[in-house]
C-alpha cells in the first residue's frame, strides 16, 4: 500500500524531453519528469526523502540555452524548457564522473554502478595504478554498524539524515576540504564518543554501502552475504506504540538487517536504535542459548 499525501493541486508545465513534448507538475524536478516518461537516468546522491544535494553529478542533462549541464535531480521544470538527456555531452560527463568515482573509491557494493560503468563505457583504470584513492580503513568502533569511508562518494545524504532533515542529532558532518574531505564526527572522535544515537538512519540512506550493519559487514568479510537468498518481510515494530514499519531482511532464517519503507507516511524510512538494531531477541532460539 502506498499512502498518497494530500496536497493542493499543482499546475502542469510544458517542456520537451529529447524532443518529445511532456507535461510535468510545477515544482517537480527534471528527474521526476524523466522518470515519468520512462527514462532511466543514473543517480547516486539523490534520495527519495531528502533534499538532493546534487553533488555526484551523474544525473546531468543538457538544458537548451544553458552554458553548463544541469543536475536532473534538483533542477526544477520550467515552462518551455528543452531538455536532452542522452546527448554526447551528457553521456561524456556521466562517463567521466563514473570513472573519477570508481578510480578513487570502492563501488563494489554500490547498486547499479557496474551496470552504468558498462553502459557509459567508463574505464576507471585509465588513470593508472598511481591514481590517488580515498584509501580509508573501515572504522569498526561499535557493535551495530561500520563506517567504511573507502566506499564513500561524499553524497552528504548521511549528514542530512543525521541532521536537520531526519534525525536532528547532528553527530556527523563533512570535515576537511577537497579530496581530503571526509564524513566525520566532531574532532574525528570514535562514534562511541560522539553524539550518535545509533538510529541507523544514515545506513538507510547510504547509496554505496559505505555505511552498513555490522552483520552485513562481517558476513561480506566471511563471504556468506547472499542477497539473492534473502527474503524481505515488512511488519510493524513492537517496541512502542508509534507503529513504525520494519522490513526484515532474512537469510537462512536469521535477520541480517532491518530497513524501513520510505513511503510510510509516518516514518519515511526513519527508525530508532531499537527498531533498527534490536532484533536479537527474535532469533534467541533455544539452540543459541548457553
Amino acid at each position, binding site marked *: 500500500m502506498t499512502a498518497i499525501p494530500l496536497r493542493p493541486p499543482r499546475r502542469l508545465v510544458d517542456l520537451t524531453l529529447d524532443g518529445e513534448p511532456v507535461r510535468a507538475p510545477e515544482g517537480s524536478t527534471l528527474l521526476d519528469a524523466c522518470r515519468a516518461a520512462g527514462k532511466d537516468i543514473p543517480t547516486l546522491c539523490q534520495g527519495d526523502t531528502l533534499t538532493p544535494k546534487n553533488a555526484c553529478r551523474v544525473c546531468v542533462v543538457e538544458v537548451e540555452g544553458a552554458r553548463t549541464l544541469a*543536475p536532473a535531480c534538483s533542477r*526544477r521544470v520550467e515552462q518551455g524548457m528543452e531538455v536532452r538527456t542522452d546527448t554526447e555531452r551528457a553521456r561524456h560527463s556521466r562517463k*567521466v564522473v563514473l570513472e573519477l568515482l570508481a578510480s*578513487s573509491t570502492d563501488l563494489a557494493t554500490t547498486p547499479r554502478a557496474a551496470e552504468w560503468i558498462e553502459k557509459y563505457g567508463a574505464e576507471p583504470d585509465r588513470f*593508472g595504478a598511481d591514481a590517488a584513492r580515498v584509501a580509508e580503513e573501515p572504522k569498526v568502533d561499535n557493535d551495530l554498524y561500520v563506517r567504511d569511508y573507502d566506499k564513500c562518494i*561524499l553524497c552528504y545524504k548521511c549528514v542530512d539524515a543525521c*541532521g536537520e532533515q531526519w534525525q536532528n542529532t547532528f553527530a556527523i558532518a563533512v570535515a576537511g576540504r577537497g*579530496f581530503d574531505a571526509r564524513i566525520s564526527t566532531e*574532532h574525528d572522535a570514535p562514534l562511541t564518543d560522539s553524539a550518535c544515537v545509533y538510529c541507523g538512519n544514515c545506513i538507510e540512506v547510504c547509496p554505496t554501502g559505505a555505511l552498513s550493519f555490522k552483520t552485513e559487514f562481517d558476513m561480506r568479510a566471511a563471504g556468506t552475504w547472499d542477497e539473492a537468498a534473502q527474503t524481505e518481510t515488512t511488519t510493524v515494530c513492537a517496541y512502542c506504540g508509534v507503529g513504525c514499519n520494519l522490513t526484515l531482511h532474512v537469510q537462512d532464517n536469521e535477520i541480517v538487517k532491518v530497513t524501513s519503507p520510505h513511503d510510510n507516511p509516518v516514518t519515511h524510512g526513519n527508525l530508532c536504535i531499537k527498531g533498527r538494531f534490536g532484533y536479537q531477541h527474535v532469533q534467541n532460539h533455544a539452540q543459541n542459548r548457553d
Partner: protein
Amino acid sequence: MDLRFGDSKPTDEERAAVDALLGPPESAWEGADDRTDTDLRWARGGREARERRDLLLPGLHALNDRVGWISEGGLDYLCRRLTVPPAEGYGVATFYAMFAVKPRPATVVHVCTDLACAARGSAQVCAELERDVGPAGSAGSGAVWQPSPCLGLCERAPAALAIRAGEAPRAAVVAPATAEAVADAASAPHEAAAEPPAVAAVHQAGADGLVLLRRVGVVDPGSLDDYRAHGGYAALRRAFALGPAGVIREVTESGLVGRGGAAFPTGRKWSATAQQPDQPHYLVCNADESEPGTFKDRVLMEGDPYALVEAMTVAGYATGAHRGYLYLRGEYPRALRRLRTAIDRARARGFLGEDVMGQGFAFDIEIRRGAGAYICGEETAIFNSIEGRRGEPRSKPPFPVEKGLFGKPTAVNNVETLVNVLPILIEGAQAYARTGTGTSTGTKLFCVSGTVARPGVYELPFGATLRELLELAGPPETLRAVLLGGAAGGFVRPDELDVPLTFEGTRAAGTTLGSGVVLVLDEGVELPRILLRIAEFFRDESCGQCVPCRVGTVRQEEALHRLKDRTGAAAAGDIALLREVGQAMRDASICGLGQTAWNAVESAIDRLGAFK
C-alpha cells in the same frame, strides 16, 4: 535539536577570547561554569543562540588569533555558546586553511609559492627556509612556516606573511622576501619593517586620466576629512538627490558590468534585488580577492578605504539593504586595519548608522574576515561562509538576488565594481560611458606581475591593448607568454599583444579579462612547472562538494606531473586524458571553480604548444 557536548573544557585564555566576542555566557546552558537554580528550571540559549550562528567564523578567528590553533575545548565552548553542533563546528574549522585543529606554535609564516612569486624566486626562499628553519609544517623555535597560495602581494613578489597569535595578535608582511627577512619576521613580527604605502604599487600615481586610483597616494587613508576634501561623499549626496531608482538608472545607463570576473551588468543586478518583495535585503561586498595574481582590490582598500565605505552605502541605498557585509580575505591585515578605522570613523560622524547624512536612511557595514579559502570568493559560497557554514557554493537557481545571504535577496559586488559607482554618480552615466568601448565602459584595473620592470596596479580605459599595458609596466626582452585572467584565465602569445583589453575583445581572442590578472612570463620560465602550480592550486582550493571538481582536479594534477618532462607522442595520451576530464569539469561542476579549472592548462596546450 539535541546537542551533545564532550567533556573537553576550554582554557581560561580560550574562554576569554570567545567571551570577548560574544559576551559572558548567561546560563549553564550556554556554557557558564556554575549552574544556578533557574538553570535547572528553564533551558535558555536554544533558538536565540542558534540565530547567531554567523558568529561562528569570527569565533574561530578569535580562538585562532589568541592561541594559534583551535583546540577541542575551545571549539566545544564556542559551539555551546552558539548552539552549533560540534561536528558541524569541526567541519567548518577544518574547511579553512588558516585554522589548525592540531597544536602548533603561536607564529605561523605563510610563504607564497603561487604564480607571481614562483616567477620571482619563491622556490629559493622556501629552500633556504627549509635549510635554516626546518621543513615546511614542522615546528621549530616557536614558529612554523608553510607554503601558501597567492597572498595578493604580487607587485612585491616573492611574499610572505607572518602571523603571531596572542592577546594582541600581530601580522607582518615581508615582501619582497628573503629567507633571512622571513625568519626575522617570524621571531619578532612586531619589529618587522613597515610596509611601503599602497601607492608604491601604483606607478601611474599623479597621472591624468585616473579614475579609480586617483585618490590612492593623494589622500590620507586614515582621515575622513581628507577624503571629503578630495571629493568624498559627493556621490552619496547625489545618490540621495536621485533616489534609489534614480541611482539604479544611472548605474544601468553607465553600462557598468561586474569586475570580479563574470562581467554581469551591475544595474540589472541591483534592480533585480531592489524589486524583491522579500525583506530584509542584504549587500555583500566581495573583497575575497584570492585569484592568484590579483591585488587591485587590496591596493584600493589600503589606499582609499573610505571610497569603498561610501560606495557600499550607495549600493545599500539603491538596493534597499540596511546592512552590508564586507567579506575580506584573511590574508590582508593592513586592508582590515584601514577599513575598520574607516568604518568606525564614518559611523562616528554619521556617514553610517541609523540616519546616514541625516537623510533618514539606515545603513551599516560589518566586516567579515575569510580564513584562507579561494572558493569563498564564489558568490554563493560567500553566503555560506558568512552564515557560519562550510564555504561550499550553493546550486543556482535560486540566484542571490532572490535568495542570497540568510535566504534573503542579496546583491553581491566586487570591490572594484562598487568603487566605479562613485564616478558614475559624480560625472553622470553618459560622461562615464564615454570612456571605454560600446560594451565595456569605463576604466579597468589590471594587476601586472611576473617578469616586468614595474609590477603593480594599472588603470586604463577599456580598449587599450595588452601591448600598451605592457609598455607601461616594462615588458621583458624575451616574452614567452602572458596569462590573462589568472589561474582561471588563458594564455596570450607574444604575437597577440594587440588584443584589445575589453570583455568582448579578449573573448574573441579566446581568453578572458577575468579579474584583471596580467601575469607576464619570459623565456626563462618553465611552462610545465607553471601549469603544475595552477593544477595544484585548483586541487588545493576545491571545496570537495562535487565529484567532477573534487576528483577531476586531482586527476588533472596527476596527469601534469606525468607530463612534466614529456613532449610529443609520449605526451599525447595524457593530453587526451586532460581534455576529457577538463570537459567534464567544465560541463558538470557545480560552480565556477571546477568549471574553469582546466582553462589555463587547455590554453597552454592549444595556444602555446606546451608539451609539443
